[in-house]
């Protein structure tokens, strides 16, 4: 294959069009893929590979390269056993302070926000599945938060929970739910970040679940009506099982997104108050701990890979379950 294209190229420098016509289908397909492969090679595969090799070296805080001797998997061992916690801006995993260690913060954020996004997204999808006047505009209103830039989303919730201008802090403080300065408290900030994420991304869930709802065969509902099923029974026996694959796909996408959270935290609060995994990468990088930063980045990718495979197994279960 490579020799073919090589000789083809040298022969046909004068007429590239002629050369393209002479390629086999497979060769033409590879030619069309070449620009994509080049971009992926330079800005995706090479950086991933380089991040991995960086993570195999020691941290060196000074010098042009900021990378020390080759240490093998030592960074990973120290990171996962907690020996590296003290050297990092925030601990990687410390169960004694779950609200300031990166793994626990990221997991709490992901689980809680994806749970509420699924519930609200499902609700929104059921609403959009109905016929009513103004449906088009309702859909615009529900999609709009999804399209709002992360920095503006963060700004909105920063302002809403700002003790002086926002009107939410005082009543919520008096109810004992949050402190008087929520943006300085890890628990309150995590809560605000979760609320902000649910506000923005429930719509994404809603659209994917809606597509699932609309692919359900309507005659199934007629059968249910004839057999006298209540609306709730209809939902439980027809809608829910048939829409479940779409719900899982939507949850998978949102989980991947939530595990990368960075910008929202940076705008609403700060990376040291709510240290997510991506925050820890950036902070270690700013502190010139390149190797540690690379290790955290790669472990994050690994965690995401584990979550993705769990979803895929679960999906195969649901999808392959025959009548279910």
């Amino acid at each position, binding site marked *: 294959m490579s020799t073919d294209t090589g000789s083809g190229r040298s022969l046909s420098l004068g007429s590239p069009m002629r050369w*393209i016509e002479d390629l086999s*289908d497979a060769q*033409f397909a*590879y030619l*069309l*893929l070449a*620009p*994509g492969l080049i971009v*992926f090679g330079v*800005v*995706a595969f090479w*950086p991933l590979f380089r*991040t991995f090799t960086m993570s195999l070296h020691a941290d060196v805080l000074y010098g*042009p390269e900021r990378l020390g001797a080759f240490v093998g998997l030592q960074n990973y061992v120290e990171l996962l056993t907690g020996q590296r916690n003290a050297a990092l801006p925030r601990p990687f995993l410390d169960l004694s302070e779950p609200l300031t260690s990166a793994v626990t913060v990221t997991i709490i954020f992901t689980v809680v926000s994806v749970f509420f996004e699924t519930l609200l997204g499902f609700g929104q999808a059921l*609403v959009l599945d109905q016929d009513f006047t103004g449906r*088009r505009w309702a*859909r*615009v*209103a*529900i*999609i*709009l*938060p999804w*399209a709002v*830039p*992360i*920095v*503006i989303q963060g*700004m*909105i919730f*920063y*302002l*809403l929970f700002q003790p002086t*201008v926002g*009107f939410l802090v005082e009543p919520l403080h008096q109810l004992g739910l949050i402190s008087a300065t929520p943006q300085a408290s890890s628990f309150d900030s995590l809560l605000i970040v979760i609320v902000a994420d649910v*506000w923005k991304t429930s719509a*994404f869930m809603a659209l*994917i679940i809606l*597509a699932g709802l609309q692919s359900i065969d309507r005659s199934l509902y007629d059968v249910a009506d004839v057999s006298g099923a209540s*609306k709730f029974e209809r939902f439980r026996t027809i809608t829910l099982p048939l829409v479940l*694959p779409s719900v899982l*796909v*939507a949850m998978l*996408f949102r989980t991947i997104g939530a595990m*990368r959270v*960075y*910008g*929202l935290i*940076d*705008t609403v609060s700060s990376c040291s108050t709510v240290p997510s*995994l*991506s925050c820890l*990468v950036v902070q270690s*990088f700013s502190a010139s701990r390149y190797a540690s930063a690379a290790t*955290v*980045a*790669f472990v*994050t*990718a690994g965690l*995401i890979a584990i979550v993705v495979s769990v979803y895929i197994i679960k999906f195969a279960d649901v999808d392959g379950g025959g009548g279910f």
Partner: protein
Amino acid sequence: MAASQETRETETTRGTGDEEEHRNVVQRWASGSMNNPNRTYRALFYIVAISFLVTTLFPFYWLLMLALTPSAKLTDVGLLPNGFNPEAFLTVFTKVPFHVYMFNSIVIGLFTTALVLVIASLAGYAFGRFEFPGRTPLMLIFLAISYFPPAAFLLPLFRLFTANVTFFSLPGGTTVTSPMLFNGPGAMALPYTALFLPLSIFILTTFYSQIPDGLEDAARVEGNSRLGALFKIIMPLSAPGVATAGVLTFIAVYNEYFFAFLMTDGRAQNWSTIVWGLLSYQGRFETSYNLMAAASLLGVIPIAILVVVAQEKIVSGLTAGGLKE
């Protein structure tokens, strides 16, 4: 069916007509809904629908109230502004060159979108219309890229774009290093292209694979070259798919925070986007909450227009991307 239901309804109301006067509105509604569950469902539906609309739209309304509040009265802004002063919508541009930041965001968005569409059209065409060895593994590898967190690309890319990566050394001591792209549009557009290409490739693969084979053969018989057939016949036919991929890419780029924040130093003349524009109100001017609100609203406008105009495209694109199984 509907008629019989109506008669039943009138019968019930007639039957309970005497008691009706002694009941209040709530009781009447309750008895009515017990007799006719569909009415309850309808009422419940409207309550749920309206509460969804209120929660999604309220933050924008409140931003407007905050933006209209004069600087001196910025405490506890509720449902109405404390006073009325639309000046903030002009001050945002004088305190910080917010129009430049927005211009940068839009230009980088359009540039990335163009790049993504060209590359994704070619790749989508290859995946959608040809069988070749390695097709499935290549597609899976492309899709896998979108699973990686941006943080996993950051460190090498930062060094690459700040001219710190040496490609090779020439005899005589001169070295060839990577170009200095930091503080320029390329430092953002290139990572965005890699991050957002997979979705576009997927959408376009689906579109191209649905075009009947005969059309392409006919174009070839009429004397079009291979690329001619692609650009003159196949691309125009898949225009809806190209538009969908374009809208989604633009929104994704305009949304992006991570690289926009880390690949420039934050100055407007250095291609910083609205991320830095908005954050500069947060940092330098401690009390300019009304300016933050006004700038946020202005920043939403381009994207709001796009959502209103292209909502069908967004819905079809997201669901195509989501339901790839």
